[in-house]
């Protein structure tokens, strides 16, 4: 409680002269869960952006010696003694005497030491910078942190690439949806009347059709001869096209509420042009809500992509996304034999949780004046 009276404390002065963004930040900081969520997302985004650097191998490279291989967990010591440098065991391929199938067998005597910044296959970072250095690797043989799939592809590497794809598709989808929502909701909220009525009807029509079936309908229209890049962008477009109505409704009602505020009338009576009102009053009140909106709708985009790719109507291999990775875990046999194929699901869950918690925190912080109005 304020002990010093009379003179204004530095703390109070700081509060009184704090702008909207500072207040939002102060309130947001108190929300521990949201901070954790933000960090988790930063890490995921980093993984996605630097996927080729972090992943020891390309997403399609096969390790024929280690098919359906379980995760290799780096260790420091075993019955053969301690090592300061973490290592994984080597594998030997043997043929099963009965089925004659090749199976990987762990060779506990062979150690593969983990090295950082090793030379690997060449790649281009961000599709531009040619590089060879990878974050980590082993000197001989290969390392598969999360194991491999039925073709012997490294799940860890694939997951890094998938993270990049899924997050970026979510971002683009949300951006398109938010853009449409702003334009359409903005027009409806600003002009009102018949235009508003018509747009409301249209929004309602798109909203009543079940979302995933609608996605499916649009995704089914992708011609089979389309390239991966085309499918990728078509997906973002579809996500955006289906996602806008909910956002547009929120934009519209927020705009209507803001327009009715006394201070907007005050600005108009002070001789402000519409552009001034929008720039000085409406947009600043809006941006924080839009950020919240984006964060909240993001999980739906990611989940929709995952779901669609999962059932084969979204992205197509060799593109790698969370949904495509999960496709391999679609049947019970796969999960039984190779439960590590379920690791991508953990990523999806963690990412969505992070977004949800972050969204909640932002929503609480987004209107720093809510309390002081009372």
């Amino acid at each position, binding site marked *: 409680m304020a002990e010093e009276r009379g003179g204004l404390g530095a703390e109070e002065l700081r509060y009184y*002269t704090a702008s909207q963004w500072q207040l939002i930040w102060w309130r947001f900081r108190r929300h521990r869960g949201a901070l954790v969520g933000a960090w988790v997302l930063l890490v995921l985004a980093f993984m996605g952006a630097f996927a080729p650097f972090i992943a020891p191998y390309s997403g399609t490279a096969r390790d024929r010696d280690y098919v359906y291989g379980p995760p290799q967990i780096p260790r420091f010591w075993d019955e053969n003694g301690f090592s300061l440098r973490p290592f994984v065991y080597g594998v030997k391929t043997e043929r099963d005497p009965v089925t004659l199938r090749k199976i990987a067998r762990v060779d506990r005597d062979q150690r593969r030491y983990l090295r950082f910044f090793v030379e690997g296959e060449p790649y281009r970072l961000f599709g531009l910078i040619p590089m060879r250095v990878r974050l980590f690797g082993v000197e001989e043989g290969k390392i598969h942190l999360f194991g491999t799939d039925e073709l012997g592809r490294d799940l860890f590497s694939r997951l890094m690439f998938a993270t990049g794809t899924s997050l970026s598709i979510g971002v683009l989808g949300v951006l398109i949806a938010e853009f449409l929502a702003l334009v359409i909701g903005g027009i409806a909220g600003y002009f009102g009347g018949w235009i508003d009525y018509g747009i409301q009807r249209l929004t309602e029509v798109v909203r009543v059709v079940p979302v995933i079936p609608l996605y499916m309908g649009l995704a089914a229209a992708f011609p089979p001869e389309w390239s991966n890049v085309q499918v990728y962008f078509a997906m973002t477009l579809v996500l955006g096209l289906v996602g806008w109505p909910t956002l547009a409704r929120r934009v519209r009602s927020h705009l209507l509420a803001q327009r009715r505020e006394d201070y907007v009338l005050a600005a108009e009576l002070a001789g402000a042009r519409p552009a001034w009102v929008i720039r000085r009053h409406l947009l600043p009140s809006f941006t924080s809500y839009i950020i919240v909106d984006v964060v909240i709708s993001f999980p739906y985009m990611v989940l929709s992509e995952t779901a669609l790719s999962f059932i084969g109507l979204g992205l197509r291999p060799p593109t790698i996304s969370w949904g495509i990775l999960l496709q391999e875990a679609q049947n019970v046999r796969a999960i039984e034999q190779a439960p590590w194929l379920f690791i991508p699901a953990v990523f999806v869950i963690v990412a969505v949780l992070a977004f949800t918690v972050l969204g909640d925190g932002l929503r609480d912080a987004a209107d720093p004046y809510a309390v002081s109005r009372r």
Partner: protein
Amino acid sequence: MSAPLVEVEGLAVRFPVHSRGLFRRRVGQIHAVDGVDLRLERGETVGLVGESGSGKTTLGRAILRAVPVSEGRIRFHLEEGEVDVLALAGERLRRFRRHMQLVFQDPYASLDPRMTVRDIIAEPLEALGLAASRAEVDERVREIAQRCRINVEYLRRFPHAFSGGQRQRIGIARALVCNPEFLVLDEPVSALDVSIQADILNLLMDLQDSFGTTYLFITHDLAVVGQIARRVAVMYLGRIVELAPTEELFQRPLHPYTRALFSAIPSLEPGRSERLVLAGEVPDPAHPPSGCRFHTRCPFARPRCREEPPELRALAPDHLVACHFAEELAP
């Protein structure tokens, strides 16, 4: 005597009433303001008194062109000549706004919480481009802030740092920064605590003394209007029923409605003589009563009141009243 600053003639504001549902038919209209004549002399304060639903706020905003006007004339007599305000549109209307401003009732909703006090006060100057440079804007903001007894150090702060009374001072400073000739004050002290009200009323009187601004002071509180206004107009259901110099009105209210308003004010001296307590409430403005709109609640109503709307006529010099039987009823 010179021409008045603001001249309002036959002003009417009607809001359409729509039915709900798919086909929004127009089912009627609310006569919020219905044929009001009003003249405001340069530098005077006219009080506009009435209950909620009387149309006083709409009248004030209509003069400022903040709500669409259905009928009538509004003229400003400025130094540069006479201006027909209703004929203004677009850019010319926008430019004209420097001559007339509004102070809001709610000191919380009327200040954008995302702008500093300096930016709020500077808005009319910057929006209208009335200052040549940023330095000049700062200079004028500083000057008006001092006049409105706002600590200059507060200009960097945001509205959330302030109490109701201080916020209202900011609102007044914003309205006055472009030196308007005419100010509509819409219940500027109703939302404030009693101990703060007096301070704001004093400030408004001081500012009028130094700037010579003309005030239209809207309130539901006759006691407040007695302190600040030179003349008072009493409104009932969109019409002015009585208009007189304050002293005259307080001593000799002629309209039964005005008298009822007076006797409804709780007094510090309990047990005053003859009280005129009104029955019922203000009727729905979408369906106003015929004839004299007050006849449904008037204790003296006669058959004629139901049929014939009374004209606003002068019973004494400067004392106008809209009642058929004002002479008989006069105390």
